């Protein structure tokens, strides 16, 4: 059994759960390189070694291959974004997800279409995997009218109500209460949807994180908080920002179930989040999940991949654990795909990205009328007269 899983105590006044899982039983150590003389976070995770066999056996082949296909699509989409950013087709801030694909794809593979997700500004892949058409995402990045947010949101604000994509939010941690509110609404309406809320490890030092977890635990709300711990909040490592490195341990403060998972392993994420989803649906209870992962690109497209805050060697070493390659390895070992099959899926991913580019290119810019549209749910007229 994984030792880093914690479940809340049964009675409200019971002893808080212990933190013993944080230092033992890790099956897949992945320490980050230590800076000289500095304490470093133990980045190992503790997912049960049997999760791969379990997930491969329990998951339909079509789903397993679809996950690989989505990882490839996410990777190719983001690579194309880097290219489009360099060509200035994409403006503003643009944060890429390359390296972290296993988290979104593993987590979203456990959801129903009517479940909701919130994420931060690194949101392209979450949106696509939740079901938003890649063309409408690319059109949004291009600032075009057919963008998923009509060109008003851009890279950091992708929304699609029909797909259950609740944004794309760009104030670190600011969306955590919002996700908690959607989970509150599910419980209020006595429905069994769950809400997934993704954010980076730097957000756990924000007040909104603590306020939300307290309410979610107090009121038993079906919200799953997924910390994508990629080790750096922009250029500040977790060791330099957080008094404790075991992010999942913060759930103890709220008597909340928690789990640490290898975020570079898509099957481990699926395994872990499916437990949390079950807890949300059945018990209306929240979970805090820490997915330990790594971003291969800079914080945003205007930031360097490595430099003052991390070394080239560190990035290269992490690339050896590429989540797509390792997942492909598992599928090959299980006899579910071969190199040819991979190449076919990759060709399809690249073609989908090309179609997305074509769609975005063909879409018009927003019109002058769009400037004042959707400030209010009724026309802006009376406001404008008094404001200008």
């Amino acid at each position, binding site marked *: 059994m994984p030792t880093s899983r914690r479940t809340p105590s049964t009675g409200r006044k019971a002893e808080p759960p212990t933190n013993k899982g944080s230092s033992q039983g890790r099956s897949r150590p992945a320490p980050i390189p230590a800076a000289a003389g500095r304490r470093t976070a133990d980045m190992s995770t503790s997912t049960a070694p049997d999760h791969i066999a379990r997930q491969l056996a329990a998951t339909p082949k079509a789903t397993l291959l679809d996950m690989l296909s989505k990882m490839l699509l996410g990777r190719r989409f983001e690579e194309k974004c880097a290219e489009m950013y360099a060509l200035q087709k994409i403006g503003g801030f643009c944060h890429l997800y390359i390296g972290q694909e296993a988290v979104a794809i593993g987590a979203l593979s456990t959801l129903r279409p009517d479940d909701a997700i919130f994420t931060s500004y690194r949101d392209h892949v979450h949106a696509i995997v939740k079901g938003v058409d890649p063309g409408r995402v690319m059109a949004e990045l291009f600032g075009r009218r057919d963008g998923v947010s009509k060109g008003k*949101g851009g890279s950091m604000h992708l*929304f699609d109500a029909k797909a259950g994509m609740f944004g794309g939010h760009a104030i670190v941690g600011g969306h955590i209460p919002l996700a*908690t509110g959607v989970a509150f*609404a599910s419980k209020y309406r006595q429905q069994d949807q769950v809400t997934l809320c993704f954010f980076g490890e730097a957000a756990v030092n924000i007040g*909104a994180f603590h*306020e939300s977890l307290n309410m979610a635990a107090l009121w038993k709300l079906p919200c799953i908080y997924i910390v994508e711990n990629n080790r750096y909040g922009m250029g500040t490592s977790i060791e330099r920002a957080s008094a404790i490195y075991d992010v999942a341990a913060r759930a103890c403060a709220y008597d909340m179930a928690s789990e640490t998972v290898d975020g570079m392993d898509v099957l481990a994420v699926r395994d872990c989040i499916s437990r949390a989803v079950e807890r949300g649906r059945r018990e209306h209870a929240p979970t805090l999940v820490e997915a330990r992962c790594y971003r291969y690109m800079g914080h945003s497209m205007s930031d360097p991949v490595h430099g003052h805050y991390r070394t080239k060697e560190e990035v290269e070493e992490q690339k050896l654990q590429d989540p797509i390659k390792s997942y492909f390895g598992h599928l090959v070992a299980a006899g579910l795909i071969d190199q040819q099959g991979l190449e076919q899926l990759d060709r399809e991913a690249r073609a989908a990205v090309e179609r997305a580019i074509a769609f975005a290119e063909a879409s018009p810019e927003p019109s002058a009328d769009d400037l004042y549209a959707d400030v209010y749910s009724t026309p802006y007229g*009376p406001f404008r007269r008094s404001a200008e």
Partner: protein
Amino acid sequence: MPLITYRDALNQALREELRRDPNVFLMGEEVGVYQGAYKVSKGLLQEFGERRIIDTPITEEGFTGVGIGAAMVGLRPVIEMMTWNFSLLAMDQIINGAAKMLYMSGGQFRIPIVVRGPGGAAHQLAAQHSQSIESWYAHVPGLKVVAPSTPYDAKGLLKTAIRDDDPVIFFEGETLYGSKGEVPTEEYTIPIGVADIKRAGTDVTLVAWSKMVSVALKAAEELAAQGVSCEIIDPRSLRPFDDAPILASVAKTNRCVIVEEGWPYAGLGAQIAYQIQQTMFGDLDAPVTRVTGADVPMPYAKNLEHMAMPSPARVVAAVREVLYLE
């Protein structure tokens, strides 16, 4: 018509809307078991239960965000700020969340939320508990801002605010809760964005909202005794702002004094003065004048607090100035 308090008028509005729409719920500190810090929610827990009347921890950013999230999926939360002073902790949620969500989602996510509570100074509560920050919220596109001065307006506007599909920032007057006024027994609503003439007059236009309406009315009484006729216009909504009745009044009086409790610098009165001069420049017989709170954090000492607040005497002096009397 029954004479009821501003507090009871708000309570009636909440009760009626909670009965009318199961998507409406009230959330905030002490709204349930304690019956409301100012007793606006008295009896609601007993009628609607703890599913819909929700006591929260002291966690303004958190529960405001929870309300906004719930509104994203069509619930109609009424979030009570125990006082607007505490809303500063929730400003990221209100401004970056509620106000911008519809726009940045390309029109997909409406936020039908009301955030309400008392604003302005009460009596000797000192700097952190005495401030009028409606200008801050009125600055933000995407928000609607309302500040009723009478029980009748409070009830009619709160009912409208709860039914509105956009976020409404609802300023109640901390010292108005006990004030009484006529409120009909039959149902009514008041549209957001429609001003009301609180007193008709011919010599000078006074613009005032919330608690400052009573200050303006007292000044008008005194001025009437001096032979000066004041017209008092209460915009009731600060965003959208109904400037037409003000402009029509100034066309008649050619003079305007704006009375506001907030700080002067970059305050709402400056915007109103701008709007008047822009269209009425040729009609003005005197510069538009403002009577505002003093440009200081609110002091505790009774005499200093009095000096820091707009008073009928200061309004009388300002009116006499624009009329060039003495």
